[in-house]
């Protein structure tokens, strides 16, 4: 277990004593790691404590917290906690506190991290690696929880109780500490900050603790492997050079907008500097409004109809195309059936409108065949909107959806058909007993996954095919977000609705993925 046990026992046999089983340096580094662990645990305590004591705790972090490592490990949370304790008892000494937290904690962190680095590189003790892993786990999770709690507390109290995500500390760290120290000592930190407001605003926009979490997670992953991998990082620098810009790009365009979810807890007005917090008011509004039931009904009905029609039609079509014997005809028909998939929904809607309108071909046909007695304006009938949308979806995507089934059908062993033929199976017998079971797992996976997307009832199709008369039946969650957010400028409500949708969708998809793993031994993620 230990790599460098004590070789020369000085006072008799010491191998039974735990302390001597490891070199002394190990215990030093072990101590360093313990300090980290305790500090991060204290951080945790303070975060939790903040949560329970928010009302009495109305300080601004600017005037109190100061630490080089705050940006990374939010040591100021400990400070804030101590401060709140002292402030409530009335024995607050700013200078003493500042000195402790300006030098004390950062120094401790620095030292213990140096020890940690030595320990990881030199002693590959399992116990130690495990221990440092726990420490890293906690340090990684702490800022994350901190961010969430800050948002949550602010939302719950409808106020801006805790002002930042650690950005101020980072800002102060970047500036000349003497200058900042003077400003703090003279009690004009706010003025000082406002002088540097542009840099400050830029920094506050970035959720530093989240980034710290991210860095810690990466560090954790790297440390969990043996240290040879650390040198491999250098050998793979080309890969990192290629992938890191893309990861930053993805972070900006996919993950950074998630910060905007805080809008759903605010009364957001563009251009205002301070957005008032309103808690869960928008969610309450959305759930209790009459709209909610209608929007949810529309969403679920549309996706249910899409699901049923989409699956039956594409499986049926795939079976039928599979029966065509002439290879060339088969390919031509497939090519034609994909065609609508490549049209935009705008073009499709234009064509559908042309097809369904009062003097369009469908009306001509139905009246000439005597099925309808008078011309119908299907696009203006609220009751037929769901069906119309479902059939439009089938028209647009049925050919494309058959690809996957046809591909699965080609994988079926032809010998099965031959032996079935010898056993006297007819065409439909083969279809039901060989082809369908052969593509069963494909169908199952696709079905489960599309149940995961139950709240994604489409956006473009209903938006382009609806009009004022059919809107009550057409407005699903996506349309609701669009109408609320873009057309009525109700940004916060739209964000809340969108957030609700995404969260439910992720839950559904996770469940669906797990289900497909269990049932079909296949999964998409």
């Amino acid at each position, binding site marked *: 277990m230990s790599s460098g046990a004590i070789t020369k026992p000085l006072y008799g046999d010491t191998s039974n004593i735990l302390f001597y089983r490891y070199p002394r340096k190990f215990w030093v580094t072990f101590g360093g790691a313990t300090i980290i662990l305790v500090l991060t645990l204290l951080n945790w305590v303070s975060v939790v404590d903040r949560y329970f004591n928010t009302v009495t705790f109305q300080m601004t972090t600017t005037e109190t917290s100061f630490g080089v490592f705050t940006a990374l490990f939010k040591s100021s949370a400990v400070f804030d906690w101590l401060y709140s304790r002292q402030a409530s008892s009335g024995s607050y000494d700013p200078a003493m506190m500042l000195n402790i937290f300006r030098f004390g904690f950062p120094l401790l962190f620095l030292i213990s991290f140096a020890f940690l680095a030595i320990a990881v590189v030199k002693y590959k003790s399992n116990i130690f690696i495990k221990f440092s892993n726990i420490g890293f786990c906690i340090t990684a999770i702490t800022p994350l929880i901190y961010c969430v709690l800050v948002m949550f507390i602010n939302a719950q109290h409808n106020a801006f109780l805790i002002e930042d995500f650690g950005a101020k500390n980072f800002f102060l760290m970047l500036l000349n500490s003497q200058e900042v120290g003077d400003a703090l000592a003279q009690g004009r930190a706010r003025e000082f900050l406002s002088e540097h407001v542009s840099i400050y605003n830029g920094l506050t*926009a970035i959720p530093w603790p989240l980034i710290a979490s991210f860095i810690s997670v990466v560090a954790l992953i790297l440390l969990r492997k043996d240290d040879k991998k650390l040198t491999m990082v250098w050998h793979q620098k080309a890969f990192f050079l290629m992938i890191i810009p893309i990861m930053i790009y993805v972070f900006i365009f996919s993950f950074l907008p998630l910060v905007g979810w805080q809008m759903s807890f605010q009364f957001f007005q563009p251009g205002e500097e301070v957005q008032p917090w309103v808690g869960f008011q928008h969610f309450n509004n959305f759930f209790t409004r009459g709209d909610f039931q209608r929007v949810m009904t529309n969403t679920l009905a549309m996706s249910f109809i899409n699901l049923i029609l989409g699956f039956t039609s594409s499986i049926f079509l795939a079976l039928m195309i599979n029966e065509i014997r002439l290879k060339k005809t088969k390919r031509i028909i497939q090519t034609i059936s994909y065609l609508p998939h490549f049209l935009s929904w705008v073009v499709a809607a234009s064509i559908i409108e042309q097809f369904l309108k009062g003097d369009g071909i469908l009306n001509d046909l139905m009246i000439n065949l005597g099925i309808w007695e008078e011309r119908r304006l299907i696009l203006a009938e609220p009751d037929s909107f769901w069906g119309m949308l479902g059939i439009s979806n089938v028209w647009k995507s049925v050919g494309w959806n058959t690809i996957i089934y046809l591909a699965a059908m080609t994988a079926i062993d032809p010998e099965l058909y031959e032996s079935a033929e010898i056993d006297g199976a007819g065409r439909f017998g083969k279809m039901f007993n060989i082809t369908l079971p052969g593509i069963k797992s494909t169908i199952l996976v696709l079905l489960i996954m599309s149940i995961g997307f139950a709240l994604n009832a489409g956006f473009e199709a209903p938006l*382009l095919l609806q009009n004022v008369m059919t809107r009550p039946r057409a407005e699903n969650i996506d349309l609701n977000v669009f109408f609320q957010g873009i057309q009525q400028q109700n940004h916060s409500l739209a964000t809340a609705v969108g957030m609700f949708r995404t969260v439910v969708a992720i839950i559904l998809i996770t469940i669906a993925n797990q289900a497909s793993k269990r049932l079909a031994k296949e999964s998409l993620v």
Partner: protein
Amino acid sequence: MTDSRLKQKSKYVKAKYKVKQTPGDIIFHSLNAILMLFLVVVMLYPMLNTLAISFNEPLDSVRGGIYLWPRIFSLAAYEAVFENELLLVAFRNSIARTIISTIGGLFVCSVAAYVLSRREFLLRKFVTIYFVVTMYVAAGLIPTFFLFQDLGILNTFHVYWLPGLFGAFNVIVIRSYMQGLPDSLVEAARIDGAGEFRIFLQVILPICKPVLATVGLWLAVGSWNDWFTTEVFARQNQLATLQHELMKLVASAMSEVDTPNNIPGEGQLGGHIMTPIAMRAAITMVATIPILCVYPFLQKYFVKGVHVGSVKG
């Protein structure tokens, strides 16, 4: 087994397989043929109908009753489209954004896919998960809007190509293809002293043509067909796109639909009386034909691409 018996048997076998068509088969195949005919009609008729209307005399089209062939042949609708300056701008923008976002997107996605396809890459699993998460977690419309505003790309041309460079699904499709390539290719190049960038550009990319064609088609079609970006993020005339102009016409047609006697607004354009119905048909065709031109050539690739995408491991 004597020769004669063998002959007899082969004759028997031949005979058995020659008489394949039972009456049931004939009925089934005719029904299937009818079904396929119906399918072809349903898929093609609306397109051909729109084509016919676009070539018909605009004012005459309002009377309706045009099916597969124009009643009075005229190029007036197309002339109107190509005389309209806004539509020309839109056409140019559509082409520019399609080209830029296809090339840029292909480059970014294939770089990411290349790194993820190399088994020795340390953070392979982590980065894969990092990318896949983006397929499921979307911030939503409003946060995206404010992000674009903060980045300063709102109402600029950049909003058309910059946000769409990366697509997790495309990366996975390309990665699956690259993983299927033999490792010896990379190793040989490495022994010859090529760096990772050179291996990627000169060894891997050229043999990934099929999958790049597939993903390129998806990117091009997605970019060409997109109207929503214009609607929300680029509301300026000089940033108009073809699909968005068409969308405006479709939306006005949709709102007119509730009046039984559908009287379209008429306008004088280039000596012809232009009607929305003819205009819409012509724009529909202009917006569709570029895709229909590339689509048959790339078809053999994208069937393969979809297959690869569906069986990723």
